[in-house]
C-alpha cells in the first residue's frame, strides 16, 4: 500500500462478488451431476480456482495491495503446483 488512506471496498462490490460466487457454486453442482469423465474434475477445479481468485482479490483485498504481496501469494500457488506436478511424475514413472 502506498498511500496513507487504505482503500475501502464498497458494500456493492462485495455483494456482487457474493452473487457471482453463489452462481458458480450452483454451476459446479450442476456440471458435476452430468458425467463427463475426467473433464468433470478439470471443470470443477477450474471453477474452484476462479472462485478462489475472486475471494483473494476482492474479499481479501489483494487488488489494492502492494505488488510485493501479490507476487508472494502467486509464488505460494506456483510452489504448490510444482509440488503436485513433481509428486505425480514420481508416481507415474516409478
Amino acid at each position: 500500500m502506498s498511500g496513507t488512506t487504505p482503500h475501502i471496498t464498497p458494500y456493492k462490490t462485495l455483494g456482487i462478488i457474493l452473487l457471482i460466487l453463489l452462481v458458480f457454486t450452483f454451476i459446479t453442482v450442476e456440471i458435476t451431476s452430468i458425467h463427463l469423465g475426467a473433464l468433470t474434475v478439470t471443470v470443477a477445479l477450474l471453477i474452484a480456482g476462479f472462485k478462489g481468485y475472486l475471494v483473494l482479490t476482492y474479499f481479501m483485498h489483494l487488488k489494492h495491495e502492494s505488488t510485493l504481496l501479490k507476487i508472494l501469494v502467486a509464488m505460494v500457488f506456483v510452489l504448490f503446483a510444482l509440488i503436485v506436478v513433481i509428486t505425480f511424475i514420481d508416481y507415474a514413472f516409478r
Partner: protein
Amino acid sequence: MSNQVNHAHVHRDDEAQKLGMWLFIFTELLLFGGLFLVYSIFRVQYSANFHESSLELSVTFGVINTVVLLISSMSVAFALTAVQKGNYKFAMQMILLTVILAGVFMVNKYFEWGGKFHHGLYPGSDLMEFLDNGHHLFFGLYFFMTGLHGLHIIIGVILLLISYVKIKRGKIQSDNFMHLENAALYWHLVDLIWIFLFPLLYLIS
C-alpha cells in the same frame, strides 16, 4: 514514508502486521495443500473406492454449508468496510451475523458427521473391516480434512469475537483496524479452503 510522518507518535506498523498475517496464511495454505495432494494421489490409486465413498456424502449438506460460508465471508468483509467508514454499530452486527453463520455451519457438520458415525462410516468401525483400503482412506481423509477445517472455523470465531469486544471498547476504530482486518483475512482463508474441499470431497465422483 508519509505514513510515519502522519502517525509519528503511534508505535504501530500496519503493513508489517498485515504481512505477518499473510505469511501465516501461506503456511496454512501449504498445510491444506499437502492434504489435497495426499487426497489426489489416493484418488488416482483407488478411484473406484473413492467414487463409491463420495456418493455416501450428502451434496445437499455440502451446498448449504458452502452457501453459509460464502455469505459469512461477505458479512465479515462488510464488517471491515463498516469499521473503515466509522459505522461501528453495523460492523458489530455483521460480526455477530458471521458468528451465527459459523454456528449454522458447525451444526450442519455435527449432523453430517453424526450420520456417518451412525452408519459406521468412520475409520476403525466394524463395517470398515469389510470394506477395501480405498474406503478407509477416503473416510480417514474426509474426517481429517473437514475436522481440521472445523477447528479453523472455531479459531476464526474466537478471533472475530475478540474483534467484536475491541470495537465495543473503542480499541478498533476507523484509523486503527488491523486486528479486525487480520481476523477477517483468517476468516476468508477458511472460506477459501472450503471452496476447494467442497468439490473435491462431495462432487467429483
